[in-house]
């Protein structure tokens, strides 16, 4: 009898197709790419603003292109998905113990949603 353990190699590029939970994880991770692109657009806008009114008007005109609107709708949907998934797992990272009990997960993730909504209302009010 000899020891000759067999090592099974796993695919580095296709492993996440194997289980639905791995797919959900990848969906959460991939949606952040759109948030990244949106951030870059925002930074470009700031740069144009610093270059003067004409440049900034040009940037705003580019934003009104159908392709740009499509991207922004998509980015909004994906960033909502990204936020929901992260808020829902937030209680795992931030459990709050009161005495001998832990607060229910819904309280911790609920607090995230409340702050999120309040901030959104504040920013929308300030912007309009």
């Amino acid at each position: 009898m000899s020891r000759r353990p067999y090592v099974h190699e796993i695919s580095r590029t296709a492993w996440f197709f194997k289980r639905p939970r791995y797919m959900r994880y990848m969906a959460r991770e991939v949606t952040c790419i759109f948030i990244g692109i949106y951030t870059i657009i925002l930074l470009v806008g700031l740069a144009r603003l610093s270059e003067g009114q004409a440049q900034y008007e040009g940037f705003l005109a580019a934003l009104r292109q159908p392709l740009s609107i499509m991207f922004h709708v998509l980015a909004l949907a994906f960033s909502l998905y990204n936020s929901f998934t992260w808020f829902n797992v937030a209680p795992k990272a931030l459990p709050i113990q009161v005495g001998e009990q832990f607060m229910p997960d819904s309280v911790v993730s609920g607090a995230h949603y409340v702050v999120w909504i309040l901030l959104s209302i504040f920013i929308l009010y300030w912007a309009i």
Partner: protein
Amino acid sequence: MSDNRLGARQVELEVLRYNPDRDETPSYQRYSVPCKNEWCMLDALNYLKDHIDPTLAYRWSCHMQVCGSCGMMINGEPKLACKAMVRDYEGVIRLEPLAHFPIERDLVSVADDFMDKLKRVKPYLIPAKPKTLEEGEYKQTPAQMQRYRRFSMCINCMLCYAACPEYGLTKSKFIGPAAITLAHRYNLDSRDGGRDERQEEIATNEGVWECTFVGACSDVCPKHVDPASALQQVKVASTVDWYLEHFMSWNKK
């Protein structure tokens, strides 16, 4: 086979077989096993070994979800064979050794790597100031115990390692869910003073920062330990450490 005497239904098992003395690669073997309604997968395997094929190798001990020996992949999901009920499965049931571990033989995987990792994280109390016998015991309130109780329920069954893609993709470099959770369990213990020693191991690239919060470990944990939660808490605490060290040097421990 006197199947009727058992009041059983025939269940098709497809078991991964690997004999290191004979086989170059593992292959599947089909068995038809008469299973009773109240049987778990381990009962089916025991019947299979006793009555059909005595050469099949698999680990088990307690048959009651305490020893953590009978972890295996059942239809691709890491499960304890003593907890998975045969009646919950339809069609051909595929049994394989735990994913991400080398296969020793048939359904037996090599656990050496996990054992080494357990040792590395020092999963035992390291009191800040050891007490003499005369000074009495290390006392703890129920609230202090509750802080880590969940993370102390681990039975070292390694299902979380079989579920964790990071452990597989890093070719076992990642210290992994169970070991880091156990380290965190002792870090949270009011009687312990060994956190700095454990942080050396777990607050590293091979430690908690290899975790990308897939969360699969918590999904498959048979004891609801929630390793994903422990690891995220370690990340938060390690980040706080880093800020204290770099921006508030007067606040050093």
